[in-house]
């Protein structure tokens, strides 16, 4: 967003958008974005959130996706991929489960805690969106990673996402119900999860969720949700002309609140940007 410090998420998505518009031609803004990302990569291979933080962050997955098409960045991307493989979402400790058991308290959520994906921040729970980003990033570079854990982590991350699916398809941020009350799916989270699971497009869960996304998209009005939905449907071979038309109308009305992330995704959805998310 104008007036704010540059950050990895917005820069990575903006780089992809610029590549969608200008192709491989050398474009100063795209080169600037690449340089910015290269200069911010941590020694361990990860990326911080922005200029004012040094800590490794979930945005590393987006930097991998953005830089993976550039051969010059191959080494950096592999280093980041190896860092990603070392990151695991946590699960509730024995003490937490013991307290629940002995005090007869109801468990808030029903999910398989043993399925590990990726968390937003270190030492916290696995959530759908960061897990989807890391799955997509690893799937894009899996052939270049020598670690034996790649396939295992990918498989477990996929199982985790399927485990968290809402009853009628689609995904909320991480749980499908709380204290027995069903949660509803979000279009952006659902689209990102489906993009991460695109290589299983024939699975029943994918098809049910794709139908759920199509329904949600009819009533979706934000730049972010429309863009992710259009990108996802395009990757699944579905026509998205109507969504793209609404995207243009929406931008005319709200300018997507000036959020770089949403504007970049809008550009990717309007052009041929979906290909950057293909695995």
């Amino acid at each position: 967003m104008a007036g704010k410090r540059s950050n990895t998420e917005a820069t990575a998505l903006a780089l992809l958008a610029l590549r969608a518009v200008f192709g491989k031609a050398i474009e100063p803004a795209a080169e600037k974005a690449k340089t910015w990302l290269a200069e911010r990569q941590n020694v361990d291979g990860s990326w911080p959130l922005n200029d004012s933080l040094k800590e490794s962050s979930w945005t590393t997955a987006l930097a991998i996706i953005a830089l993976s098409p550039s051969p010059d960045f191959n080494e950096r991307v592999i280093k980041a991929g190896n860092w990603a493989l070392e990151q695991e979402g946590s699960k509730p400790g024995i003490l937490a489960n013991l307290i629940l058991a002995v005090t007869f308290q109801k468990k808030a959520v029903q999910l398989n805690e043993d399925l590990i994906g990726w968390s937003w921040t270190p030492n916290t729970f696995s959530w759908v969106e960061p897990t989807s980003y890391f799955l997509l990033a690893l799937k894009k570079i899996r052939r270049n990673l020598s670690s034996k854990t790649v396939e295992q982590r990918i498989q477990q991350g996929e199982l985790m996402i399927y485990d968290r699916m809402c009853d009628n398809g689609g995904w909320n941020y991480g749980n499908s119900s709380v204290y027995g009350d069903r949660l509803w799916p979000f279009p952006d989270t659902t689209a990102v999860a489906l993009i991460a699971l695109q290589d299983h497009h024939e699975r029943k869960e994918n098809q049910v969720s794709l139908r759920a996304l199509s329904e949600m998209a009819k009533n979706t009005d934000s730049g972010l949700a429309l863009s992710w939905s259009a990108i996802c449907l395009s990757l699944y071979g579905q026509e998205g002309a109507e969504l793209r038309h609404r995207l243009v109308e929406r931008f005319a009305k709200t300018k997507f609140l000036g959020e770089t992330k949403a504007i970049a995704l809008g550009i990717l959805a309007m052009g041929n940007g979906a290909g950057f998310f293909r695995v």
Partner: protein
Amino acid sequence: MNRREFIKASAGASLYPFLNSCEQQVRWEKAAFIKTKRSQVAILAAEQYGSSLRDTIRRGIQMFRLELNGKRVLLKPNLVEFDSKGAINTHPAVIEAAVGAFKTLGAREVIVAEGPGHRRDNEYLLTASGLYDVFKEHRIRYVDLNTDDVRLAKLKSSFTHFHQLYLPETLYNADLLVSMPKLKTHHWAGVTLSLKNMFGVVPGSVYGWPKNALHWAGIVGSILDINSSLPLPRFAIVDGIVGMEGNGPLQGQEKKSGVLIFGNDLVAVDATAARLMKIEPRKVKYLDLAGEFLGNIGYEQIEQIGENLHPYQQDFRVIDNFAYLKKLV
């Protein structure tokens, strides 16, 4: 005592030494917190989300004689998720009226800021809730605290392992922070009011959604550490016109109370709001601890102004895990 209660009590007793040893670490900088002997809390009747709200809110603010001339006021509503059939968020009419009231009373600028806990899609939340049109009509600046620039703040208490937290720059550029929660029960904290509402100032981009790092560090401790360390004066306006009972903060049922609650001691405001819901504030863990150093919680320590509490008290249902909150002391 039946068998179930006996096992529960025994288990609690056997775990208590361990839990208590954790609690012994709880500390706060004594010099940083000087409580007044008594706090005022105002309850004002507000039957519905109508045009008279601006005047009601203006009256509520004036009761506390806040110095607002030339000040930048930051309104922090509860905007977490949207459900057209629910009462999740602070109503847009209350936010609109508060903006007008603070401007009328001399504020140089009134900003609305929130870091939604569940949704990353601000545009959706603002448009679906109706706030986008309000902001556009009145040219109100909205800041997404989830993605704001951040500054590292040293915590003045240590109920969690954090010791320091990244806080949004916007907080440092304002003169007064107004917590504007919805009157709701909460399935993990018992109640969510003006103190719990401050989870929304912690940036999601750093701490994840739904502010997951705070949940892992402990909800009670996080509420206390955030509220002990915010870098500016605070005020609270609770939207209790229509609240939520049961499985809050998202999936509970609407509950009409017909009031707005005001105060500059957020602990006293929340204690009063809890009593309004027929919930014992001393049994809400974070309120009980907050009462030790952040503000006043005791009934005798709070001077009620405006309407009397009792005619507006309603029995808000809580989930089974919090049934013990309903035994008023």
